[in-house]
């Protein structure tokens, strides 16, 4: 065999192995798309019984009776939205000032320690929050916080009913604790992206730290922060265990935040393995589809927003 022939054989083999390698890696990447599509198709297919039975009325009906086969998504959707809203109202402001503290105010060593602690809080599994919420925080709410709120704001329908510890408000607070480290960490990164030249020019004009933050850093990073909040929102909406432990699992729409409610995720966690009738199971899968739809919309909005921000940040300055 001549020298040149050998070389040719070698390179043919090379490109063969190379294209196999490239195809294999492309297949693995495409597998991710297949899974997303598969989730969607499977949820739609397995909720067909429920869709046929209830149609669009499913979304606005508040009945939930496995015995008479009357189901509606309203109580679960309501609980999901209300607990998430409480979580966002509490978590967003606290996360923002925390991020501010870590970037602008704290001594670098302190910032590292506190920042590290908050990042660890983000790694704690949600079932731990659930345990702590049910056995420690809910009794604390019942004995101290809820009576206090009741004494001062009890005239509002929002805070009517007996303080039971568990319920919508407690679930919202625990959700807030869970997304707080997440939003803080992302906002901290956003604040750090603000070029120091811009901040320094504000200080050079005699601004105080707060003035520089409010008029320069916040304005510069506002889009990133909105993106961070969207991502936190996406997490809160689908969080299962922490909510299931403390929300009370009651299929009722009540104006009071003290009352027990449920969320889509908690209903699934509690009832999925108990659903023996095909229709019941199908109803639960359709609830899952609703949740999947909501989180996908939130995710897509967040990503589009963040993508736009990255482009404008890259182009500017």
């Amino acid at each position, binding site marked *: 065999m001549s020298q040149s022939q050998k070389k040719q054989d070698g390179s043919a083999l090379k490109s063969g192995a190379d294209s196999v390698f490239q195809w294999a890696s492309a297949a693995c990447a*495409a597998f991710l798309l297949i899974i*997303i599509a598969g989730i969607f198709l499977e949820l739609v297919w397995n909720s067909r019984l429920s869709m046929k039975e209830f149609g669009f009325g499913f979304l606005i009906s508040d009945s939930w009776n496995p015995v008479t086969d009357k189901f509606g998504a309203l109580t679960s959707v309501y609980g999901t939205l209300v607990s998430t809203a409480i979580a966002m109202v509490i978590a967003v402001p606290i996360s923002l000032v925390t991020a501010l503290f870590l970037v602008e105010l704290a001594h670098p060593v302190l910032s590292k320690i506190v920042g590290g602690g908050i990042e*660890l809080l983000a790694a704690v599994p949600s079932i731990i929050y659930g345990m702590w919420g049910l056995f420690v925080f809910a009794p604390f709410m019942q004995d101290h916080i809820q009576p206090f709120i009741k004494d001062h704001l009890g005239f509002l329908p929002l805070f009517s009913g007996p303080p039971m510890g568990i319920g919508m408000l407690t679930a919202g607070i625990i959700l807030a604790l869970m997304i707080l480290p997440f939003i803080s960490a992302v906002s901290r990164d956003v604040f750090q992206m603000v070029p120091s030249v811009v901040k320094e020019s504000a200080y050079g004009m005699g601004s105080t730290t707060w003035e520089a933050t409010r008029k320069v850093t916040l304005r510069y990073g506002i889009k990133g922060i909105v993106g961070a909040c969207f991502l936190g929102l996406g997490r809160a909406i689908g969080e299962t*265990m922490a909510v299931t432990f403390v929300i009370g699992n009651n299929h009722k729409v009540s104006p009071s935040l003290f009352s027990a409610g449920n969320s889509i*995720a908690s209903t699934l966690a509690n009832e999925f*393995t108990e659903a023996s009738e095909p229709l019941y199971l199908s109803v639960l899968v359709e609830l899952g589809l609703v949740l999947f739809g909501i989180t996908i919309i939130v995710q897509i909005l967040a990503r589009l927003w963040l993508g736009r921000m990255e482009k404008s940040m890259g182009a500017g300055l």
Partner: protein
Amino acid sequence: MKRRGVALRRATDKAVKVISAVSSLIGVFFLGWILYVVLDRGFDAFNLAFFTQLPRPPMVEGGGMANAMLGTLMITALATVIGVPIGIMGGIYLSEFGLENRLASSVRFYSNVLMGTPSIIIGVFVYGILVEPMRRFSGYAGAAALAIIMLPVIARTTEDMLNLVPNSLRESALALGAPRWRVTLGVVIKSARTGMITGVLLAIARVGGETAPLLFTAFNNNLMWPTNFNQPTANLTVTIFNYAMSPYEDWKRQAWGASLLIMVGVLAVTIASRMIFRANKE
């Protein structure tokens, strides 16, 4: 500019500083509170039986969670074995072959979506594709659900880490006549190894504490050791859920023990991954 007294401006500044310091302490305070409670109550549940025995029936004191500990380890390990190679290959595609093409950009987009999908939805999905056709809950289904959760995390960190590898390294290996696949596996991956290990560890930490995707896949099994993955398989997190919701004091006590184990495990893996990453950076 509006004229405002220097004193007022200074006072506002002080107030904001105090508020922000207090708020960040709130986060640390709750972390401390949760850690303290779990450590305190968890240690109370620890004894030899807890680590070596099967659960006892309700109302019978004692027994342990040894089968659930083993089950959690096995399910997580199997999920890692499935999820890591696929995830890494996907990441390789994104970084090495798919800079600008449409497949890669949609994979990037939807892997973010998949990362944000509630884990309970993954559970419902795996129930539909594995548990229902097989007509039984199984450890395999649990591992599949966890693997799906790991996939996008590993693919994206792999991509990020490979992107940090300088192109000159690829070019010099190619110039020596090495085929693309050897350049990637032998040179590029080797130099990005530490970062990828960090990503894998973070993914393991993330799924190790998951409960929701196991509820309708691995289910739970109080009666036996996890010897047969084709059956409902015991695991710590679902056991915590079942025990915590039970009316039995002894079970609740043991649920705290299991919580401590899970928390320590997950935090240890998380911290280890950070330390590896940092040690490499310096």
